[in-house]
């Protein structure tokens, strides 16, 4: 039988049993929709993480004290004190691929303005921090090198801190706030970055000269980290090599010994995160794919019933000259069309679902390849699970089939 005739005959058979077909496609619809929604959320999350990280500065390099022990053994507290002022100062000149450097000392605590207070984190930084982490000072100005030298008690505050401490819309610039009882004069308010992907409020912070924070608040001589920026994203690997060599020389680490610091680029962090996202997505998709398997078995079941019911028709077709392969194709086409129809509806439902997820402010974006994949998988399901019923039909004996009641 020709292709066009096969399709015509299959569609006709399907239409003559609409409700049953619909029920047997339900499994496919749900399975495909689930796969698409899972993939769209996986993809959407990855995209939004990427966006988030590029907002934080995509060529940021973070240097932390202590060897790279991700999830490993606890280290000696002294190992966490390896980043010194001298390290920072040595980075300020002579590096080819490093553009900006800012040391960092952080402390959590309460900040007070009169009757208003809130819990926040104070970041001791150099003014370069603004450039590295892409912060914009919306009102006022950033503190200066001068302030660094003088250990000045000035600070720039995030939007959240500003709103908490100055609820009546007063201008915070020039006002004095107290962090751990140390008064700081507000010189600038940062432009809001909002919440990040992990639900953290990025605007809940105070940035002050690192010298001030080290001496007056943390009372320490080492940094909790150093942030740097590479000249561009492309050379961030080279910048890391440069910084590693410099720090190893500074710390007199012999060849073959481990670093006593860890340098990671934002890119690496991003890659780790997206590979974690990939794993989670994969697990969800595999779970959804199992429902497709069950749906396939459902189709096989309905096709077996259909073959039995239409035994007489099969006998008749054979008696007027249908070969076994004509009959098996007829039923294969039927099962493929059923599963493809289910797949198409499933894709539509998947799009709807991912749209609904977006409405619930979940990151979701349907990747085109997942649509193509679902379509292909449905065709395969139709083929694979239609095979057994189609073969059963093809092997019937014409006379016995005609006599079937």
């Amino acid at each position: 039988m020709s292709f066009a005739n096969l399709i015509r005959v299959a569609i006709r058979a399907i239409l003559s049993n609409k409700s049953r077909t619909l029920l047997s496609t339900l499994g496919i619809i749900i399975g495909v929709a689930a796969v698409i929604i899972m993939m769209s959320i996986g993809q959407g999350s990855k995209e939004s993480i990427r966006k988030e990280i590029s907002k934080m500065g995509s060529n940021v390099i973070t240097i932390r004290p202590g060897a790279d022990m991700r999830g490993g053994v606890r280290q000696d507290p002294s190992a966490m004190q390896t980043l010194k002022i001298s390290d920072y100062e040595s980075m300020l000149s002579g590096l080819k691929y490093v553009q900006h450097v800012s040391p960092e000392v952080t402390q959590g605590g309460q900040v007070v303005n009169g009757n208003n207070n809130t819990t926040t984190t104070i970041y001791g930084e150099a003014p370069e921090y603004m450039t590295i982490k892409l912060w914009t000072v919306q009102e006022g100005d950033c503190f200066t090198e001068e302030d660094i030298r003088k250990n000045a008690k000035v600070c720039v505050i995030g939007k959240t801190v500003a709103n908490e401490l100055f609820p009546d819309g007063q201008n915070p610039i020039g006002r004095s706030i107290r962090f751990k009882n140390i008064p700081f004069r507000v010189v600038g308010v940062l432009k809001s970055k909002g919440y990040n992907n992990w639900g953290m409020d990025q605007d809940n912070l105070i940035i002050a000269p690192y010298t001030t924070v080290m001496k007056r608040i943390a009372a320490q001589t080492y940094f909790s980290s150093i942030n740097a920026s590479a000249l561009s994203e492309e050379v961030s690997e080279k910048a890391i090599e440069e910084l590693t060599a410099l720090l190893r020389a500074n710390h007199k680490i012999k060849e073959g010994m481990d670093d006593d610091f860890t340098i990671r680029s934002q890119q690496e962090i991003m890659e780790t995160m997206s590979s974690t996202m990939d794993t989670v997505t994969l697990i969800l998709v595999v779970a959804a794919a199992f429902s497709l398997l069950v749906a396939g078995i459902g189709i096989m079941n309905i096709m077996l019933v259909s073959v039995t019911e239409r035994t007489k028709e099969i006998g008749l077709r054979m008696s007027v000259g249908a070969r076994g392969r004509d009959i098996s194709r007829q039923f294969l086409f039927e099962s493929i069309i059923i599963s493809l129809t289910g797949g198409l509806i499933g894709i539509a439902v998947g799009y709807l679902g991912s749209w609904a997820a977006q409405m619930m402010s979940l990151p979701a974006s349907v990747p085109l390849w997942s649509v193509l994949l679902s379509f292909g998988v449905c065709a395969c399901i139709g083929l694979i699970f239609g095979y057994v019923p189609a073969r059963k039909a093809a092997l019937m004996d014409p006379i016995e089939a005609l006599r079937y009641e």
Partner: protein
Amino acid sequence: MSDMERKVVIELDNVKRDFRVGSETVHALRGVSFKIYEGEFVTIMGTSGSGKSTLLNQLGCLDTPTSGEYYLDGIPVRNMKRSQRAVLRNRKIGFVFQNYNLLAKTTAVENVELPLMYNTTYSAKQRREAAIKALNAVGLGDRLEHKSNQMSGGQMQRVAIARALVNNPAVILADEATGNLDTRTSFEMLVLFQKLHREGRTIIFVTHNPEIAQYSSRNIMLRDGKIREDIENNNILSAEEALAALPKPQDD
């Protein structure tokens, strides 16, 4: 014509067909042998249960003998592949079933088109034209779009005849093809079969009606799965004349 010159289309050699029903064995055909030559119009008669349909199923390549050989155009059907037999049924043989076997919920014209669906040399248009032509030949030109469940028994029977003729078969096998028709329509069908016979087709026609045997060239009598009588008819009556002699229908 002598037997040597005529071409043998069908040859049965001691064909037996047994059916197992529970623990018993039914011997539907107990050793049937005959030759049918090209262009013969053979009627097969016999009591109910004598094995006529079973025999016709063998001839139509729908069933295979339990023992014995059936040669179609000299080739043993037993050795053919299933698909080869399917192609023979599609191109060489036209089969009218005793119980019509039409596709349910399907129009007359679609039922008649069915064999041509399995012949890719026909386009959709040619298929429909051929089907309409065949339906016109059996007098159902005005019932093309009637579904099989909207037709009378006689109409369904004629759709079945049209379906058997649509592929221009060399061999026509008809099982009680006029069993449900009134005298007049029966004769109309006989006229049609005689015309096909004149065109050189081989026709094997199972019937209960001894009168019909007079319009064929040969008559085989079956009893209990065996041939009891096999006679040539040298005085073939004309169905056209018989039809003309019938009293005209009153309400026309």
